């Protein structure tokens, strides 16, 4: 090992540094000279075997070369980085290529609608209540003032549960799948004293052949407010507010005389078509500018009695309607069966 050799090492290293095209090359140069098994590192190890003056001289030179190589590697490294950055700036980069979407899930449109409805009513002080889907005939019809074999019961075609003759004959024992969410009104009244305001969303069942507008199971939302002097005027205010917020625009509401066994007076609620603004130029409202949207009325005294409340002291309003329908109107969906078909191509749009 002598100075000549060291110089040779230096020259070789410098040549290789110059020839390095990228940081990987440069790193390899570092490794081969200054790394654990590098040539210059060998020299330093060899130094151990030298003595005195020679050791000092060779040592000095080795260090000098080491520093030189490190310096040049540093400089070259900077240079390479600068060039690469410049290249990057001029390289073609396509911002219009599709981004890598993370996997996104979806909530069902009816869930989203019911949440919105619940939020609107919650902010007006309504409590959310649930009730059983498998209900007794008593709560579903009798307590709601439906006469026993009156045509009114035809309005809803009912799915009954199989029971033995003996069982179904028992008082309040006949079971069915609830045809509306109204039974929960009575259940709630039995357990609570007015004044109160509740909202009841839930699945209901009709014994109907399915088509674009009818399904066997679908969703309704029911509202009930009872107090000392709750009136039709109060109902109008609450309802108009609900609609305005649900459809995100001002809609007109018209109350039409209607008939339900559980309310008196009863109304059908029509609202101006939120799609065409009531101008009557769209398929949603069949060109009439109006949509029949819900039913409502003042709670019938017999229903208050069935719930254990004294109609002389309490009065209130109740309303109910299909959630599916509201969503169909809002999003211009024409077939109710899409909500239950579970076709992800449809559901994943929400």
């Amino acid at each position, binding site marked *: 090992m002598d100075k000549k050799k060291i110089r040779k090492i230096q020259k070789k290293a410098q040549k290789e540094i110059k020839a390095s095209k990228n940081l990987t090359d440069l790193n390899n140069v570092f490794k081969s000279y200054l790394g654990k098994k590098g040539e210059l590192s060998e020299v330093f190890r060899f130094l151990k075997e030298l003595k005195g003056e020679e050791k000092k001289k060779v040592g000095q030179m080795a260090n000098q070369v080491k520093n030189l190589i490190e310096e040049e590697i540093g400089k070259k490294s900077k240079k390479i980085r600068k060039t690469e950055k410049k290249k990057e700036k001029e390289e073609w980069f396509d911002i219009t290529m599709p981004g890598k979407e993370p996997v996104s899930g979806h909530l069902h449109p009816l869930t989203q609608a019911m949440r919105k409805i619940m939020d609107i009513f919650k902010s007006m002080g309504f409590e959310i209540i649930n009730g059983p889907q498998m209900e007794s005939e008593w709560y579903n019809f009798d307590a709601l003032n439906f006469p026993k074999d009156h045509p009114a019961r035809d309005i809803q075609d009912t799915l009954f549960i199989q029971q033995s003759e003996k069982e179904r004959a028992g008082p309040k024992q006949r079971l069915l799948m609830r045809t509306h969410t109204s039974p929960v009104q009575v259940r709630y009244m039995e357990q609570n004293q007015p004044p109160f305001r509740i909202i009841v969303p839930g699945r209901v069942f009709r014994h109907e052949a399915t088509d674009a507008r009818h399904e066997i199971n679908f969703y309704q939302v029911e509202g009930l407010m009872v107090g000392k002097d709750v009136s039709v005027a109060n109902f109008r205010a609450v309802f108009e507010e609900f609609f305005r917020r649900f459809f995100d625009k001002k809609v007109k509401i018209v109350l039409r005389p209607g008939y339900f066994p559980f309310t008196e007076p009863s109304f059908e609620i029509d609202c101006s078509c939120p799609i065409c603004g009531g101008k009557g130029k769209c398929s949603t409202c069949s060109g009439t500018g109006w949509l029949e949207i819900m039913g409502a009325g003042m709670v019938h005294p017999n229903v208050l009695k069935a719930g254990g409340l004294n109609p002389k002291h309490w009065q209130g309003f109740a309303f109910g309607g299909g959630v599916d329908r509201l969503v169909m109107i809002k999003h211009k969906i024409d077939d109710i069966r899409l909500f239950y078909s*579970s076709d992800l191509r449809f559901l994943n749009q929400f």
Partner: protein
Amino acid sequence: MHAFEIDGVERKRGDYIIDIDVLPNRGPDCFSHIGIAGEVAAIFDLEFRKKEEEVKEGKDKSKDSLELKVNDKEGCHRYTARVVKGLKVGPTPKNIKEKLEILGLQSINNVVDLANYVMLETGQPLHAFDLDKVADQKIIVRRAKKGEKIDTLDDKTYQLDKNVLVIADPEGPLAIAGIKGGKKAEITRDTKNIVIESANFNSQLIRTASQRIGLRTDASWRFEHGLDLNLTESAVDRVASLISSVAGGETSGGRVDFYPQKPPKRRVKLNLEYVNSLLGVEISAKRIKEILEKLYFEIIEESKEELLVGVPSFRLDVYIPEDLVEEVGRIHGYENIKPKFPIASLVPPLTNFSVFWKKRTQDILKESGFSEVYTSSFVNQRDVDVFGYQEEELIETDNPISAEYQYLRPSLIPKLVKVLEENQKFFKNIRIFEVGKIFRKLSSRERKEKTALTGVVSGDVFYEVKGVMDLLLNEMGISDIWYDEYQPTPEDSKIAIWECKRCAEIKVGDDEIGFLGEINSQVLDSLGVEGRVVVFDFDFEMLEGEASEEHEYNPVSSYPEAVRDVAVLVPNDIFVEDVLNRISEAGGELVRDVDLFDIYEGEELPEGKKNLAFHIIYQAEDRTLSSQEIDKLQNKIIKVLEKEPDWEVRK
């Protein structure tokens, strides 16, 4: 709008047909032209003049020509009849015929047509019998006997029983009361003498009979809704008059009238303040009276606070004060009621925790890439057979519309798997879930309705789904969850749908709150599902019960942590959990975390063994741990692991 909706107006033959959607409770008075005219007059403030019929009577007396016996007073509230003799059956005058045809009724002959005409006019169904064909000229109103049948005017035969009311003569039924006439006493070209029936039957009875025999007519429809008892006499007079003038013949004097119980005049007390309170308006007492009188109500008595109102007999829908409030409201006009926000307390409503946790669950699953679906609440026989549900635990519907709706779903799994299968043609990776009600029978009289949270995922993704479960349970504040091996109960082993080794019971303490597992490939093949399917299924009520919003936050230590690794060679059937627990227990408080980072089962390892490698993270809350302390613990852990005869710590 003040009364009913108009469904359409059609111009026909120089006249207009107005299609009116009469509300069911106004059927009794408004299923007739006179009824509608009365409403129109009231609403538009017009004078309504009702024609009083003057019947030209002959010398004969009706009661001499006809004997009437009503056996069923419950079924028949009133039976009024007139007799017309010596008439000639023939074609109907053009104007009457036209009107009937426009309104959808076929013209038969002058007698029958006039009966129908007066029905449309007054709302009272009428029926004419050929008097000479009535045996002994005796009409009996009774329940049919078992086995009796009748041939009707439209050439059909109906089987009757005691639930059907019939108009009969001593020989047998002449008509199905309130529904359809029989052939026996039908009006033919040769009929000379007739008896006209104008009756009031029990609406429930007519309805059930009509449904039972499967026949609904213009007459039965009106009877089902109920009719004014007073209507029978004016209607029968009107039709008798018309018939004699059109078909000739002479109307016998007087009516045969079975009318045992004339109901008292209905009266309702109406509190004036209540009207305004219920509607939320300020209508003067004067105006309230005005409206009621316009609608033919009688103000019998009045005071400053209330009115005593007499209800006309044709308003079968008015019994209580609220009915009168509706009358006032609709005429006043609901559009004139200004909206007024209710004054109520500011206390916000109680949180419904079921709704709260359901929302939380849905959101977490959505953020984890799941799509929510809604499936039918019913399952069919095939679902039951494939998924192995037992008959005793299934709730069946009584009158399903089709086989699709035979049972209430005992689980969300069958339909979710079906959804997965159907969507496989469009999507490679499917992650779906549903929160919904399921139904099971616990015994012959006990039925349970519960909420389930169920999801199905396509692919070989057991651990990914397990990861989501951990996330979900964590977010719900449920701690102490562990995964137990699936041990099928004796009944379950009949249900061979699971890939048992790849299943776990999710438990909190000793309670099973959920299940995670794969469905076996035979079942998936039979359902046409490709690839693997992982299912998770929770009892949602139990989940809610364990959930808590409180999270205990562990303070973050400001002292450095140290990581040491340990590798253990264990038999293949040892659970990772067991080794991990052993390490944690041995290490104690100073082991902040134990992380499995490698499982190696390569060829060089001894048979039946696998190598588990863990990072052990040491950290103290109050000091920097010294190397000695860490070494000491590490050795302790190694000793504990080596205590197991088949376990070997790799050095």
